[in-house]
């Protein structure tokens, strides 16, 4: 799909999605008003549900095309920038080299955004394969993989974390994103500390990941989980701004939710709650 085709497909999809939502709302409003129509409304709802499922699949396709097909031309631009610098750099003055560096930064940032989009597409498309997941081992392994080599970051796990029934791969991705997020936003600390714990309520397990990093203004907590939303500039903290959207997507696919609590300069806590299902239960 060409970039123009991708944009056209996205617009078409958004219009179709809005129309289906509007029709679903009308149908729902109709069915509460007039019970005799209920049977028809159920049928209509089934059709709409199918339509929405089709569209979800289509969105997944578009999502994956955008992240995949745009990567190649941006990658080519970056490659040829390197060729230009290596083979013809001597002919450029300082100003010309500075412009090249700016072009490179822009292309690299576009690529970072696409990588974020690709991560989000992957967790949206993966088939759910729920089984019992040893979250304690998973968190420790994810931390070992994400731990920075150039500064001290300490992980404390408050009591062994309880297991949960979920998709192991999706949960690994979510905890990796949560830990990477905590590591990133403690970047200014000489010695940073990340604490992970969990609390069990009747039918949920809520895992939390707390850091002593820069924190954020709690009024913006909801924004954080939207893709590409950032509360800090890219110069301060690089990255696509997709990590927490990935966490939210994983939570939603499990029927759970993700939220955040924080105060500026006093660290942040990210919470992932998942239904405490029994293995084999739907």
């Amino acid at each position, binding site marked *: 799909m060409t970039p123009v085709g991708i944009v056209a497909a996205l617009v078409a999809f958004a219009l179709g999605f809005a129309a289906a939502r509007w029709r679903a709302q009308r149908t729902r409003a109709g069915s509460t008003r007039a019970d005799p129509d209920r049977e028809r409304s159920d049928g209509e709802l089934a059709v709409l549900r199918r339509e929405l499922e089709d569209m979800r699949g289509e969105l997944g396709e578009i999502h994956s095309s955008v992240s995949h097909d745009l990567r*190649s031309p941006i*990658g080519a631009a970056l*490659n040829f920038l*390197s*060729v230009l610098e290596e083979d013809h750099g001597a002919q450029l003055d300082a100003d010309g080299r500075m412009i090249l560096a700016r072009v490179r930064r822009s292309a690299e940032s576009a*690529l970072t955004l696409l990588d974020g989009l690709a991560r989000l597409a992957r967790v949206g498309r993966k088939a759910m394969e729920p089984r019992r997941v040893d979250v304690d081992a998973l968190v420790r392994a994810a931390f070992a993989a994400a731990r920075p080599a150039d500064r001290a970051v300490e992980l404390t796990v408050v009591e062994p974390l309880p297991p949960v029934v979920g998709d192991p791969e999706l949960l690994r991705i979510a905890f990796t994103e949560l830990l990477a997020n905590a590591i990133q936003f403690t970047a200014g600390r000489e010695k940073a500390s990340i604490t992970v714990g969990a609390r069990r309520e009747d039918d949920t397990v809520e895992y939390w990941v707390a850091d002593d990093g820069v924190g954020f203004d709690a009024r913006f907590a909801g924004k954080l989980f939207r893709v590409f939303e950032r509360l800090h500039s890219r110069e301060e903290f690089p990255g696509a701004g997709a990590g927490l959207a990935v966490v939210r997507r994983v939570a939603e696919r499990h029927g759970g939710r993700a939220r955040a609590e924080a105060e500026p300069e006093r660290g942040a806590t990210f919470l992932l709650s998942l239904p405490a299902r029994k293995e084999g239960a739907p």
Partner: protein
Amino acid sequence: MNRQPLLLLVDDNSDDVSIALRAIGRAGLLVEVQTRRNGREALEALHLYDGADGEPLRPRVIFLDLRMPQVDGFEVLRRLRRAAPTRDIPVVVISSSQRPEDVRRSYELGANSYLVKRIDPREPGAWLAEAARYWIQLNQHPE
């Protein structure tokens, strides 16, 4: 005089081809590289398509893109493996697709390796030159 081993690069993306040729040249590999812009041109060069003339190419290895106009990489693989003279030629799929279904299908159709096109602006195309070195210099080929 012995001819240098031949690498056949099949890719419709002229940017990728240009970077690949530059990287192979810079790696100092003793290899002749021929390029074809789609599956049909590749099959013609290998005499697996109607209307071919001249001597068929017998490359040491084929680097094959998947998504190409007219005849795609999957079809090339299928025909290569069906014909006795080309059945054993190693094929390295080079694609920007990371989809598990593309990887699986490539191996099912007889690919010997699957490489995802990488973006490494510090050394553009170095990954491909490295793979070329392996298949041309290190790998043992059926005679």
